[in-house]
């Protein structure tokens, strides 16, 4: 009897690993040059970049909300950061980028918890506002010419592994620690599992919500920095697809819309699936336009399967 719970968790984790292994195996067999080291490096980078998008989104989803503004927040914080970085002051620029992201996220959280705005409306509006401010600031022009010390973040390698992957892995480790090993993380899951119940236990729900969205904004800012470093230019139009891609990564990774569930490690799965599909599509010479179709389809299937298995348990 004791084994059953452990078995269930083990099983679902096992299924996920098997699924990933299966995907890799199929890809290795049917897709030429998949296993090629160059491809693997690109793939790894892409996986972790996708995960980066997912971290913040998973936080807001786990608390039962949604942060649609991540792309726009990244754009706004990045263009300001880029301006500073282009003058040579890399450290200050990085700080700016992250800080602006955090402030915008805090605003989201504050408005949502204080005025009881639905998460959707607030982050949706913030999406417009941040994007508009970013575009106004740059007037559509890109900012370039970053010092090498900065572009290393996006393009460099550390022990043959792309730096973005390492950074993302670092963030992953921090997130895992935060969510599973701290009081803050437990409180987050609690609020997601039952807002009212959490309140009745003395948890300051408003504070938690504000903190989560601030974090989401911070992570968006960070992601923005990595992206502009990779592209070596910052444009206010970046990240338009981010919210939807991030939701995809989260949903495939098992983070539930209703909150309180989901292990961060699942995001890796989400990242892998999305990245591998996109990679294979490229390698097979299939035009990239098929990708959107697959993404949409996979999301629906993933959620439906998850939904179905939950219903079976009930």
């Amino acid at each position, binding site marked *: 009897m004791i084994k059953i719970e*452990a078995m269930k968790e083990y099983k679902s984790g096992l299924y996920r690993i098997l699924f990933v292994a299966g995907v890799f195996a199929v890809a290795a067999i049917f897709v030429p040059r998949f296993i090629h080291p160059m491809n693997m490096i690109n793939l790894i980078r892409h996986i972790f970049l996708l995960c980066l998008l997912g971290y913040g989104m998973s936080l807001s989803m786990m608390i039962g909300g949604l942060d649609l503004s991540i792309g726009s927040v990244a754009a706004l914080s990045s263009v300001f950061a880029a301006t500073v970085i282009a003058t040579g002051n890399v450290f200050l620029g990085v700080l700016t980028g992250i800080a602006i992201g955090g402030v915008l996220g805090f605003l989201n959280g504050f408005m949502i918890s204080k005025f009881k705005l639905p998460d959707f409306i607030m982050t949706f509006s913030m999406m417009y506002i941040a994007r508009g401010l970013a575009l106004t600031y740059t007037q559509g022009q890109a900012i370039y010419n970053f010092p090498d010390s900065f572009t290393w973040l996006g393009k460099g390698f550390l022990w043959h592994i792309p730096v973005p992957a390492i950074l993302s892995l670092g963030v992953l480790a921090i997130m895992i620690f935060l969510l599973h*090993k*701290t009081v803050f993380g*437990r409180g987050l899951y609690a609020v997601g599992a*039952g807002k009212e119940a959490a309140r009745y236990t*003395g948890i300051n729900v408003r504070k938690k919500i504000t903190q989560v969205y601030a974090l989401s904004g911070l992570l968006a800012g960070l992601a923005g920095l990595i992206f502009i470093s990779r592209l070596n230019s910052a444009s206010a139009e970046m990240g338009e697809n981010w919210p939807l891609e991030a939701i995809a990564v989260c949903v495939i990774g098992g983070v539930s819309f209703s909150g309180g569930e989901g292990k961060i490690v699942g995001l890796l799965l989400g990242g892998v699936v999305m990245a591998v599909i996109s990679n294979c599509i490229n390698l097979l010479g299939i035009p990239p336009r098929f990708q959107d179709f697959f993404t949409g389809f996979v999301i629906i299937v993933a959620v439906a399967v998850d939904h179905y298995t939950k219903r079976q348990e009930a």
Partner: protein
Amino acid sequence: MTETIFRAEKISKEFPGVKALDEVSFELKKGEVHVLLGENGAGKSTFIKLLSGVFPKDDGRFEIDGEEVEIGSVHQAQKLGVTTIFQEMNLIPELTVAENIFLAREPKKGKLGIKVDKEEIEKRSRELLGSLELDIPPGYPVNELSVPQQQLVEVAKALSLEAKIIIFDEPTATLAEKETKALFRIIRLLKDRGLGIIYISHRLEEVWEIGDRVTVLRDGGYVDTVAVKETEIDELIRMMVGRELGEQFPRTYREPGEVVLKLEGIGCGKKVRDVNLELRAGEIVGLAGLVGSGRTELAQTIFGVDKADRGTIQLNGEEVEIGTTTKATELGLAFLTEDRKQLGLFQILSVKENILHAAMKKLFPRGIIKSDVEKQVAGEYIEKLKIKTPTMKRLVKYLSGGNQQKVVLAKWLATKARIFILDEPTRGIDVGAKKEIHRLMDDLVKEGYPILMISSELPEILGMSDRIYVMHEGTIQAEYGREEATQEKILHSAMGRG
């Protein structure tokens, strides 16, 4: 007028852990108002839910107009002529009165037959409302009507469904006197038309104002049916309450200590009006009262779920302001909620997580969790409270009611709380687990902690409390010491009769 319109024979219904109805029989005549009486938990609400089609019965038979019927759904019940006016509104707020009455049955007009005949609906609604001599304009949206008016619209809707039997579930709970009279006028009209009315209420006076016969249920069983003219209040109360107090409650009584919690003039909104009470160390104070008397709301005010807007709270002699639950837990308060599943536990989290999460800040002041400490503490409480679960990782939703309640208790014990408010701590729990929880409560007060226990089970109140407060419509109606309290006295006070 003495024709039977509805009969129930030996109706039984069981829920996990609790037998809600045990071979209850009932008979309703045409043109009569038959009052259904009983304490909280006596089974009235279950009975009418069965009759309304909300869920199916386990045993017994229903007969309408002499023919046996099966009531499988609310829709079916309506087709058979049974409509229930519940306390939760069953109307669509943004639609008009007329649209609500004829929802899904709208008469059509026009060449293609798709246009809803609004004039016809309004005309018929007007007639319907007029036949009840109601002055409600059918074109107004339902959410612009007051609650009593909405209730009357539901009655009109029932008539339009050609109901033969209308059940009223505590209709006057939220009504003022004027509105109650209006409702009674309608009920009399329905009587004259030959409908059968089943009426549930806690206000005993109403039995004589509107009732023809009254049936008393007790602990899920049928007690008796009497004609209203031939009975009086004391007899009814005796029927509702008269049980052998054979149950032994595990309590050891001792001299209580200092006053730990003191409320003076506490009020919060309309539900809590003027409460004065004291809680001393080492005692269990029972809080009795009918549903709706404001007990849970009082607990919520003490615990900071709602902020008191008048009066003072004193903790250990010092005045405090408890405006948030965070403050309450910091001050050492614990609140075991009435709604165990939604508010007391996180169903999708594990036993371990549920036990620990309220105590997190105290266990790990630095913010970092040590999982061996977690396991140890959780394990301690699982053992101490004898929580039956295969592993602490099991999701709480798979546990039985009694064990779930123990998890909630463990949760609060883990926070090292010093004042406990328990709202219906043994509701829906089997006998064995009940005893265990009572024993745990006794252990708690032995150590000097005070407990404020809200309960609707009179034996539990009488058996477990050092002192008893009885609440009625937002204030403390009476206070009884352990020796002097009896079930009749408590029920009398609960009904506002001193």
